[in-house]
């Protein structure tokens, strides 16, 4: 029966309740009236009987209505209420909430329909969510790309709405403007950039748009102008572009890109000032001089007194002129910038390009030597110039190979091209200057390029055998030395001197060779710490070869090593090498044999060599190697050469020798500095009677003994 009811339609079922209700009235009222009639007959008090049975019927009816109401509530109203709650849950909090079908079984198909609807809703929402997620991800990706571009952009970029509130700015904008005022999203642009020129440009662009002139305007909706920061500290060359809405007719915001032109403008200003001084400023003294000279020359009758007065005028005016012209020349030469764009260049990069280029074109061997340094120049035109010069020298001298090196001396960086043979004549070198170089911009000549770099070139002897062509260049704007080098303490001297005494291993014929003729590998290691026997490991090793007294910069060895352990944070500030940097690098067992191969047949040189040798020695067995090369220590040699001082750290010696330090505390940087030092030491040792390798080793041993004794005390 119940099953049958649950299969009925909802309307029929609701009708059933009301039928039940209607049926109750006659079923209760009928018997009540019947019994009331009988009661009146017997008792003869109609009012009393009617009251009694009326009450009974009323109570019966009430009970029926309550019972049916309860039935209605349980089976209809309450399940509907439940469904409403379910729907609300699905809509607002949990899309996966399931609809209870059982409690609503008398509600016809309502629960199932709601359930189906919920499922549909779920599917649709998931699809929408996925689309949104994808779109968001895509936007994020584009945003990242945009941020990267903006960050790397040389220009500062700011986007503002038409109320001049900043909507976006990049790193460069921040770094340029933060000193002048507060730059921040939502802030007014005028808290950092001076208002009038900016507003003027904005007005011009909006007028151009309103009058629809922008369609034919060469700059479209953009314009360039010069403005300044609010504090007047920086002058900016800026460009403003109006951004329109999607329909392309209402401006919504503007983009401002800018560069700091303060130094350029001030250099231009100085140049202008110089030019004015050189023209107008010289008029007066020249007028004085000329008038006096003409007076003396043209007046036949002039008394001695007058003549002396004119002569005095000529003397003082010409002295004034001399002084003025000297000042002008000094100011002119002191102008930091030329009109040609320059950058800081690392000589090793430039010279390796030159050497590749000449090898490709004409099979000229150009070997990089010496300690590289930074110089200021235009890399491409210098490359062309050096290439041309090398070819010219080769054509004249037929020298098959050249050394290329840079020397940092007295505030200038010399680029030297060295060959075996006599120097070139000045007229020869001059005759190359006016030929136009094929690949240069606008067909520049060698003279043009040298002039941009304020450079002269000439050829001179290096020694009896070799000559060089020298090009003095401006040093780089960046400091030549690495900033970190000043603050970090040097490694403590390492006192395991036995590591250096390997005299038996030296082949006797090598021992008697002069130092100037031997091949050396000057090397340095970076390590996780100072205790090789307590688990510290090599994390970088680098070496550079010295051959025939030349540092062969092009033949260097530099590798990072995976130490198989974590790198202590405290050591990272010394070498800057992190776990991340070495995780993909080969271990010592791979790298050390490569280094051994690089250093084969060479004498090893290092600063505080015992320290590095100890690390190498401990790895011998693992790597199946024997580091039994003769070893020289620049620290010991320095003690031998400069016994008047206690300053023998790499920094101190480099400073003493005037060697500029680049990339200090990297293995290759330190190896190069050590090589520069060692090269300088060879002639100094010779002057002290230390000529051969054996001499140098014996001298070192004496120092070792003295130091060991000192260490004992």
């Amino acid at each position, binding site marked *: 029966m119940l099953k049958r009811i649950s299969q009925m339609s909802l309307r029929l079922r609701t009708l059933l309740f009301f039928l039940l209700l209607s049926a109750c009235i006659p079923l209760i009222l009928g018997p009540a009236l019947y019994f009331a009639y009988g009661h009146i007959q017997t008792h003869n008090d109609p009012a009393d009987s009617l009251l009694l049975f009326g009450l009974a019927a009323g109570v019966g009816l009430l009970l029926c209505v309550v019972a049916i109401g309860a039935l209605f509530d349980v089976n209809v109203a309450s399940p509907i209420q439940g469904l409403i709650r379910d729907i609300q849950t699905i809509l607002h909090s949990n899309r996966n909430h399931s609809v209870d079908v059982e409690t609503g079984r008398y509600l016809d198909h309502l629960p199932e329909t709601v359930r189906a609807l919920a499922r549909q809703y779920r599917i649709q929402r998931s699809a929408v969510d996925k689309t949104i997620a994808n779109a968001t991800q895509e936007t994020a990706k584009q945003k990242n790309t945009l941020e990267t571009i903006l960050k790397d952009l040389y220009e500062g970029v700011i986007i503002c709405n038409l109320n001049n509130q900043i909507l976006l700015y990049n790193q460069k904008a921040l770094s340029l403007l933060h000193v002048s005022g507060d730059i921040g999203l939502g802030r007014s642009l005028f808290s950092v950039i001076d208002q009038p020129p900016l507003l003027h440009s904005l007005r011009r662009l909006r007028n151009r748009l309103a009058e629809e002139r922008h369609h034919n305007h060469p700059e479209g909706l953009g314009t360039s102008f010069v403005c300044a920061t609010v504090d007047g500290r920086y002058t900016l060359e800026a460009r403003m572009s109006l951004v329109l809405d999607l329909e392309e007719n209402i401006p919504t915001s503007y983009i401002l890109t800018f560069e700091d032109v303060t130094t350029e403008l001030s250099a231009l200003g100085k140049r202008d000032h110089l030019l004015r001084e050189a023209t107008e400023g010289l008029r007066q003294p020249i007028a004085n001089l000329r008038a006096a000279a003409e007076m003396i020359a043209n007046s036949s009758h002039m008394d001695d007194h007058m003549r002396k007065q004119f002569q005095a005028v000529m003397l003082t005016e010409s002295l004034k*002129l001399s002084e003025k012209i000297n000042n002008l020349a000094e100011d002119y030469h002191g102008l930091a910038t030329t009109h040609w764009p320059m950058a800081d260049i690392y000589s090793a990069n430039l010279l390796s390009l030159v050497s590749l280029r000449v090898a490709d074109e004409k099979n000229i061997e150009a070997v990089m030597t010496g300690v590289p340094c930074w110089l200021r120049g235009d890399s491409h035109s210098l490359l062309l110039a050096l290439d041309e010069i090398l070819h010219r020298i080769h054509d004249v001298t037929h020298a098959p190979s050249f050394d290329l090196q840079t020397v940092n001396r007295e505030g200038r960086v010399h680029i030297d091209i060295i060959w075996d043979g006599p120097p070139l*004549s*000045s007229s020869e070198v001059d005759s190359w200057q006016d030929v136009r170089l094929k690949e240069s911009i606008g067909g520049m000549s060698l003279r043009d390029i040298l002039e941009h770099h304020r450079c*002269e070139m000439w050829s*001179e002897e290096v020694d009896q055998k070799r000559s060089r062509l020298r090009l003095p260049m401006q040093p780089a704007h960046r400091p030549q030395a690495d900033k970190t080098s000043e603050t970090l303490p040097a490694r403590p001297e390492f006192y395991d001197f036995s590591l250096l005494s390997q005299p038996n291993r030296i082949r006797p014929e090598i021992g008697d060779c002069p130092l100037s003729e031997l091949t050396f590998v000057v090397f340095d290691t970076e390590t996780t710490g100072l205790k090789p026997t307590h688990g510290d490991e090599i994390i970088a090793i680098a070496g550079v070869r010295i051959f025939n007294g030349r540092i062969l910069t092009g033949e260097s060895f530099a590798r990072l090593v995976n130490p198989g352990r974590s790198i202590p944070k405290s050591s990272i500030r010394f070498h800057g090498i992190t776990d991340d940097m070495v995780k993909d690098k080969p271990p010592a067992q791979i790298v050390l044999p490569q280094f051994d191969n690089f250093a084969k047949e060479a004498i090893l040189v290092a600063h505080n060599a015992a320290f590095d040798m100890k690390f190498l020695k401990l790895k011998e067995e693992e790597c199946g190697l024997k580091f039994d090369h003769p070893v020289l220590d620049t620290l010991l040699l320095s003690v031998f050469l400069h016994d008047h001082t206690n300053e023998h750290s790499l920094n101190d010696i480099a400073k003493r020798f005037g060697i500029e330090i680049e990339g200090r505390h990297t293995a290759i940087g330190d190896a190069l500095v050590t090589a520069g030092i060692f090269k300088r030491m060879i002639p100094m040792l010779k002057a002290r009677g230390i000529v051969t390798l054996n001499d140098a080793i014996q001298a070192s041993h004496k120092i070792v003994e003295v130091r060991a004794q000192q260490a004992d005390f």
Partner: protein
Amino acid sequence: MTKSVLVVDDEPNIVLSLEFLMTQAGYEVRIARDGNEALEAVVEKTPDLILLDLMIPGRDGYDVCQTLRRSEEWASIPIIMLTAKGREVEKEKGLALGANDYVTKPFSTSELTARVKELLGDT
């Protein structure tokens, strides 16, 4: 014996003064107006000192200086370079090519005389 000074310059107005100045200082003065003339003058009679302008026609001053320095006979003649080029690199080039001294125009005549005397050991 009177020491001789060779003045090499193509600007007659300065030659006039230099000639007068050196004669006043007690030297015998000869004049050359370009690089080749200068070398011929040296071959003809070795001077004790050369005042050499850099910007002369033909072989320039650098060239003359280098040529003399590379010869055997004249490698040690003291040379003072006179020049209107005043940059440090040019001075460095001049000294690298063998000049003993480098004087930028305009110069003080008394100072020039002093430098000449110093190089000739006449102080």
